[in-house]
């Protein structure tokens, strides 16, 4: 029995569209966070899940995107929608540089992952010393009133941020679905499975890997811009930290690496469960720093041990849903 995911998707979309009508402000912020991680996880998934190039330094693109748009706003009053393009340009450039260096020199697997970590760390420390960007003390963006919607400067009530993130997440899903069905999707997966065999079938592995990196970094730049204008304060230690890099891959890995719905499911499961856990503990009077991360670690451990392909593939099988075009 094979069901199409479209019905499920439509129901989910409808639910998400009307969510602000009955959700309180806390629930709305949690939902926005889930969508943020779903979107960013989707972006990372393009490079790692589809094309098989493990990036453990993706916080680099979040940070560069955030600081690019943030600095333009802070120093020149340039709005986020214009700053977005500069952010994307810079992130794609960084990604292509890393990709070029790695792929030209034949670096893959754990060495590639270490390379991505090294670049992120290098940048983190570098930004700590850039006073024009606020240095270690951070950069703070002016927050105007939150009641009216000022879309040009991306200021407004939480609902505005929610719908924006919803649009991004939906757009990312559509983009990834389209990519998977296209030549890129086939070629990326071939490269991921066996690069040498892929080459023997006429695939220019270098070019297609670069494309994956470019798309992934461009998409992640958008996360960074959102981050800057949502939280309004940026610290190199935080935004480029390896903990952030790990945090944004947890969703796709737990949900299902290389699948379409994995990142979304993973983000939802992790955020909801961990919030539930912290609420429970708070109700019992325990405030323990670090417990949320231990929880993430345990979930990741359990998934890796018992559901190595992630939750979504197992769930989809149960529900009889086929993600791929094989009909």
């Amino acid at each position, binding site marked *: 029995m094979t069901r199409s995911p479209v019905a499920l998707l439509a129901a989910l979309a409808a639910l998400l569209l009307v969510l602000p009508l009955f959700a309180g402000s806390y629930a709305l912020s949690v939902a926005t966070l889930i969508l943020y991680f779903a979107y960013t996880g989707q972006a990372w998934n393009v490079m790692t899940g589809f094309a098989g190039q*493990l990036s453990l330094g993706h916080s680099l693109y979040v940070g560069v995107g955030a600081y690019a748009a943030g600095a333009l706003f802070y120093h020149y009053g340039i709005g986020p929608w214009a700053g977005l393009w500069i952010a994307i340009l810079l992130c794609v450039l960084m990604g292509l540089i890393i990709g070029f260096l790695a792929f030209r020199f034949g670096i893959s697997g754990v060495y590639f992952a270490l390379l991505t970590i*090294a670049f992120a760390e290098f940048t983190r420390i570098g930004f700590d010393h850039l006073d024009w960007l606020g240095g270690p003390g951070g950069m703070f963006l002016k927050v105007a009133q939150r009641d009216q919607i000022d879309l040009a400067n991306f200021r407004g009530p939480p609902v505005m941020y929610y719908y924006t993130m919803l649009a991004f997440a939906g757009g990312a899903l559509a983009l990834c679905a389209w990519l998977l069905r296209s030549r890129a999707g086939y070629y990326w997966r071939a490269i991921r499975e066996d690069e040498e065999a892929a080459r023997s079938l006429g695939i220019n592995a270098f070019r297609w890997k670069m494309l994956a990196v470019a798309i992934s970094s461009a998409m992640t730049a958008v996360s960074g811009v959102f981050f800057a204008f949502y939280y309004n304060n940026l610290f190199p230690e935080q935004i480029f930290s390896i903990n952030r890099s790990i945090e944004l891959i947890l969703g796709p890995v737990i949900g299902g690496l290389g699948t379409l719905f994995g990142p979304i499911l993973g983000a939802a499961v992790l955020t909801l469960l961990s919030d539930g856990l912290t609420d429970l503990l708070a109700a019992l009077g325990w405030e323990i720093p670090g417990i949320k991360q*231990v929880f993430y670690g345990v979930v990741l*451990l359990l998934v890796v041990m018992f559901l190595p392909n992630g939750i979504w593939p197992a769930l989809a099988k149960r529900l009889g849903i086929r993600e791929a075009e094989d009909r």
Partner: protein
Amino acid sequence: MSWDLVANVVVAGVLTGLVYGLMALGLSVIFGVVRVVNFAHGEMMTIAMYSAVLIFGSLKLDPFLVLLPVAAAFFVFGYVLQTGLINPFITRPEHTQFMLLIALAIIMTNALLMLFGPEARSVQVDYQLESFELGGVLLDKVRLYAASVAVVAAASLFAFFRFTLTGKSIRACADNHLGARVVGLNVKRLYGLTFGLGAACVAVAGCAMVLLVDVTPSLGPYYTLLAFVIVIVGGLGSMTGALLGGVLIGVSEALAGLLIAPSAKSMFSFGLLILVLLLRPQGLLGKRS
């Protein structure tokens, strides 16, 4: 900037670097033989450091004195971890193994955070501030002892791999996994022993390091990265390379801290990693390409 100052900084860097080298030696053994990418290596080191803090706090025992019991405990821990949890992942796709170790690293770092909080802890022995003088250069006693311990531990490990039958069996596994099984070696057990030895190295390095720096939970990821940098720079598969790489990183960190800014010292290490990965991935003394 006087020569004396630079000389002191360099010597301190060499001594600290030897301890780094021992830590990296543990990773070289684990990564090189068992082929496990131990993303939790630095976290294991940090746990060792906290253990020393706890023991010193409750029993007032110098970390150098408790080296052997701590190393033995870590050996057992490493053996159990490898044979019980990690072993099946050696044959599975790469990224699953990475995620397993990352999960362990996350759990370890944050468990430490939960138990000890984010404030720095340290061990202060009576001779903490004493030093020897050798031709204008001041050698901190703690640093000298730490480095000596590292060298002795490393030498013991060399001897083990060179001269004992078990050691040679382990090297055989590393060279030819299938061949080793064909001749009847119990590869699973040997992998467990190797991981245990790697963990023991880290334990000794941790007990030594705790006298040189303050420990916080966030040191875990930092030391993991540092260990990988050293192993890659020094060359995978080369034990001497690990020690040499450690010294190189120790000295460059010390100099970068002196010449640029203390906060920029690790920037140099990451820059070096990038260069080595691109230009000479087999490292300085590495064998495998």
